[in-house]
Structure formats: C-alpha cells, structure tokens
C-alpha cells in the first residue's frame, strides 16, 4: 500500500506530446480514476507509473522514494490490462501463481497455494482454477486478471480500462464488485477509463485528462457539480449537459432569441456567456416560466429523455418514469436556478459569487 506521487511528468512519442507536466498525488488506499477521451494520456500515465514507459521529464515517487530508475519488475505494482493479460498457455491456477513464482519474490509452495485459494474465493473463481484461460468468458477472464493482481498484495493496482471489453450487464456487476473489493482490500488503485459512469461510480477522486494535460482533479461530486470547463461538463453526465450561448443585458442573461432568461446576480458576466443546464435540472410543469415544443421522447423505463425545442435552442430534459407529453405539444418548463453552470466563451468556468454552490 503506497502513496503515489507524480511530479511534472512529460512524455513525447516522436513529435506527439503524450503527457505535459502531469502532477498527481494519490493517497494511500485511494481509488483514483483517470478519465478522458482516447489519446488523452491516461494509459501513458499508468505505464509511466508501472515503469513500462520512461518519462522524458519529471519524477515518480512511491511513498517517499524516487522510483524513476527502478525497472518494472522491482516496482511491485500490479497491472490489469484491457485485454490479453492472461497467459493463454497456462491454466487459471498457473496464471494466478505466475507472479508469485517470480524469482524476485520467493514464496514457498504452500504460501502460494494459500494465497491463490484465498483470492479465488474472494473473486468467486474457485471452480475455474483448473480451466485453461482460453476457455473462459470475458467476465471470467477479467476476474482472473484481477485475481492475479490481488494475490501478491502489491503497492498499487494499475488498471487500464479493465471493464471496457465486457458487455453492459457484466460491467455493471463487476464495477460494484471491484469497488467493494478495493475498499475491503485497502489497496491504492489507479483506474483508467473513458467511461464517465465508471469514473463517477467508482472513484474516491478522479482526474480528467485531455490532450496530455490534467483539466480537473476532484471528487465525483466536485466534477459533476462544479466542472472546471465545458469540456468536463460535457464529458460527465448522460444525457449530456445542455450548453448554449447567452447575452448579458439589463442584469440578466438572455438566450439568443430571448426564449430563456436567467438571473445573473453575483456574476460578473462578459457580454457573452455560456450557460449549462443538466437535463435533470429542467422540470416540465404547468407552472413553468419557459415554454418549448416536445420534438422527441426516449422512454428508458425509469425515466424518459424529452427533447425540447425552444425558439432558439434544443434542450434535453429528464422526466422521471413515463412522460405523457405528446410529440409536437408545447409544454412549460422550469429550470433549477441553483444548479446553473456558467462558462466563458473559451469554456472556462465562472464561479458565481455569493451564490451557494
């Protein structure tokens, strides 16, 4: 169990900048998620920590010791890959034993056996131990991969999108299991994903990366409620946040054709400001102050996504349960003004002064 610290890590591949001055401080036992789109530098960060990739500049510390020049084998990390991490020529048991049999570690046979049985039990894969890995389903394979990481109690788990090749149902259940396991095992974990739901649901804290740079670090609540930029705001939350341009006039923010109007108290607005409204903060009701036409409904069972068309914008709203509004109907709606997000036209968050966040 370790604290992992990255200090201004930079890395280029040829001409391409993969990481630019990335600094992170991951606490002991923390479940830390790196979230970002493809090519953001998440995996490179993970590989630098594992020692599989050497940074061009900056330092990596495990607890207080500098590990820059320590080869991967001696760093005592466990890496779970997106796929291909089980050795296909071995059984599940042999796969689990492999890291323990490393000449570096020297566990005795009884100890190895005990650790494997223990891990297999935790992950409910005891019945698979004698199976060849090629004959496992995707979910079973990833369970075994996680097993191979936990058998030797490493200083840190590094997980590179371990759930992304599984189908949705498995992903859901494995997500919960993994989170529970991490909390009960108490292992510092770095988890890379491009899936915002995975990030929000699992992380103690997360870092949003884009183009090799860290955009924001915070708890899931921070990221969801106070996105630092329009990029982050659009990355988390599904359906996506409604984002549109407004103009400042007479102390209020107006959408371009005045269909929407918001109080701007506490803001120092520029003449143009982007406003973000999460779909759940729009409620359709007869008392609503604004009006729009229903153009599409997507019933998901638990809730319905209603596509609204105002005079100047298209807005998505979430209605709990079944929506009885007809397509083409004009409805009134309300916006939860406490939960509005404001951004500059460059996409930077504007904190509302005096407005409780």
């Amino acid at each position, binding site marked *: 169990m370790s604290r992992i610290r990255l200090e201004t890590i930079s890395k280029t591949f040829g001409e391409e900048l993969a990481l630019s001055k990335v600094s992170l401080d991951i606490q002991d036992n923390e479940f830390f998620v790196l979230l970002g789109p493809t090519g953001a530098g998440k995996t490179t960060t993970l590989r630098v920590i594992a020692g599989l990739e050497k940074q061009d500049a900056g330092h990596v510390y495990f607890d207080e010791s500098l590990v820059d020049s320590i080869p991967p084998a001696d760093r005592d990390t466990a890496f779970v890959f997106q796929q291909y991490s089980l050795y296909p020529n071995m059984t599940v048991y042999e796969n689990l034993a492999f890291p323990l049999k490393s000449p570096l570690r020297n566990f005795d046979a009884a100890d190895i056996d005990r650790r494997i049985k223990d891990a297999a039990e935790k992950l409910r894969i005891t019945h698979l131990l004698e199976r060849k890995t090629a004959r496992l389903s995707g979910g079973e394979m990833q369970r075994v991969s996680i097993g191979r990481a936990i058998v030797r109690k490493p200083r840190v788990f590094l997980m590179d999108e371990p759930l992304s090749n599984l189908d*949705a*149902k498995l992903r859901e259940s494995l997500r*919960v299991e993994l989170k529970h396991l991490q909390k009960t095992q108490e292992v510092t974990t770095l988890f890379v994903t491009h899936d915002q739901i995975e990030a929000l*649901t699992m992380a103690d804290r997360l870092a949003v990366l884009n183009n090799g740079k860290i955009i924001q670090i915070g708890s899931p609540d921070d990221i969801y409620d106070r996105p630092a930029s329009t990029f982050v705001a659009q990355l988390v939350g599904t*359906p996506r946040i409604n984002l549109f341009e407004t103009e400042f006039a007479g102390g209020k923010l107006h959408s371009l054709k005045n269909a929407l109007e918001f109080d701007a108290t506490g803001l120092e607005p520029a003449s143009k400001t982007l406003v973000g409204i999460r779909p759940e903060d729009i409620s359709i009701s007869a008392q609503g102050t604004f009006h729009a036409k229903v153009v*599409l409904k997507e019933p*998901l069972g638990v809730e319905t996504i209603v596509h609204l068309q105002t005079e100047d914008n298209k807005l998505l709203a979430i209605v709990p349960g079944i929506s009885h509004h007809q397509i083409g109907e004009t409805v009134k709606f309300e916006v939860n003004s406490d939960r509005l997000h404001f951004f500059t036209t460059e996409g930077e968050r504007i904190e509302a002064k005096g407005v409780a966040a």
Partner: protein
Amino acid sequence: MATIELKQVEKRFGEAYAVKPMDMTINNGDFVVLLGPSGCGKTTTLRMISGLESVSSGIINFNDKDVTWLHPSERDIAFVFQFFALYSHMTCRENIAFPLRASGEEGAEIDRKVKRVAEMLRIEHLLKSRPGGLSGGDQQRVALARALVRKPAAFLMDEPLGALDAEFRETMRAEIKRLHLEQNATTVYVTHDQIEAMAMGDKIVVMSAAEIQQAGTPLEVYYDPANLFVARFIGSPGMNLVEGSYSEGKIKLGDANIYCVPQDWRASLDTTIGTGEVVVGFRPEAVQFSAQGQLGSSVYANDLHGSYSMLHLELIKDNIVNARADRRDRHQMGDSIKFDIDPEQVRFFDPKTEKALQKVAL
C-alpha cells in the same frame, strides 16, 4: 413500405439452432428492435429478412408476397451495417447515389434525391469528401443517407451505432428516431444495447438462446417482463431478483427478512406457488427507504451516477440488490438500512419455469 411477416422461420447449422422456429409480424411503419445478447440469433434473423442468409425452413412475406427465396436485391430493402460498409474509392455523393444508379435512374433525378437526403441528414458539406477521412458518426450518417435515398420497402439496420463512441451514439440515436418519425418507414433494428432499444423502438423483440423471449412495447418489457431473462436484461441495472420461500402471504428471504406480499398478488401466489420457492422482482427505483421498512440490508457499495446515486445493498449473502437513491443520501459501506418495495412495482416469478406470474382478480 411493407408489412413483414415471418412464419415458422428457422435457421439451423447441423443440429444447432441459430434461430428456432419463430413467428413475427412487423407492421407497416413500425420501428421494431430486435434486442438480445451476442449470439442470441437477432442478427441471423435480420439477415434472413434481408436475404443475405437463407432460411432453413419457414416463409418470409413482404406485403403478403412470399420472398423467402428471393435474392436480397429483389426484396427492395436497405441494409445499414455496423461498420458502415461505405465504398472507400467513391466520394460520399457517389456512395449515396450508388443504389440509385443500380436501379438506372436519371442523372438529374439522382442529384435531386441525393441533395434532399443530404439536407435531411445535414451532410451537404461532406458530399465531395471520401468516407475514409470522416469520423465514425459522419460515416454512419452517409451510410444512412445511402439507405434512405431510395425509399425502400424496409430499412434493416444491424447495430448501426455499435461502432460509434458514446457521445455520437446518443446524438445518432435521437437522429435516427427523428428520421423515423418523419419518414415512417418500416424499420427493423438490431442491437444488444437495451437503452438503445428502449429509447428508439415502437416495439421490442427480446431474443435469447435463438428464441423470442418477449415482444412488446418498451414500457411493457420494462414494467412487465415475461420471464427472468427479460427482467434481468432490460434496465440498467436490471431488475433486482431475490429468491425466497412463499407461504400464506409471506416470503422468507434469507435468514433475516420476511416480505409481506401485497394483497392483490396473494391469490396469484396461492394458486401458482402454493407453498414453495418464488422470485421477487423489483426495479431499483421501486425501493422506498424508510426507518420502518420491512426489509433490512447492509450497504455493499454506494456510488454516484450523476443525477442520482445507486445503493448496492446486501439483502441476502452474495445477493446484491440495487436501489436508486437521492444523490444527497450518502451511506458508508456496511451501514444497515431498511426499505420497502413499492407495491405497484413488485413482480413475482416462478423459479422453476422462470416465467412471470400474472396478477389474478380476487
């Protein structure tokens, strides 16, 4: 436009069924989604409708005309593939015009139709480029345009959004649905993503193990799943299913919990189960937390999903149920918590047949 009818259609490879004999009617103008996990036979069904795959036996009718042994090109259908299947050596305009040239239309007429469909899909600016350089979403738009340009009898779509990333998928989902509302063309759409199916379909046909499990509107399959498979498969996460032993209006769940069956369900349980095992099913949003709740559980994990949080509760050892909660309610792992199930939203299943029980009038 067409009504499509499948009568005892099946597909076999030797002894193994890819699709067991099935009957299905797709009404003119319907958007029907074939939904199921990989390998359930949904794609094979679609390919048999298209004629890309031959049937082992059975009859396929388009508007009461037998097309079972007709070549795909003679069926007047448009097929949209998961990986776009655009011709990389042609520009987007040529790609879209291709099906029209095949049917020998006039040049001016082709131009007019391509222009119209490009406007509809907002891809006018892409017409001169080749598909290779386009994003996945744009490529799929072009592929859709190629399908739409011709007004075929039916659109057949095989996971058209499967190769797109999440962001594009949501946009395209709404776009395809909007197009359907405008065009009202008979559409058969294959997906493994239940959210897509719920959001888009007029009717969902849930398939598993080469068989139809349930066919109905999105809300029917969501609220009244016909069996355990559908209950599990629909919803994100699926329905919570807990097995217990029933006797005289009460279900014993594990060692610690007794669940009292709502009055209007008693008759059904008494007649079908009598005394014995039953599965209680309820959706995560049917959980009502209250200090006086009749069910006790401990928090296994707790996570934020954005607008709400999901509590994972250990009701019986190793059986985790999911409960939708207000995101402001935070609980520690291991906390005990009491809840009730919304009596309107509870469902019961027979564990032996795996089928849902029906409420019977008293």
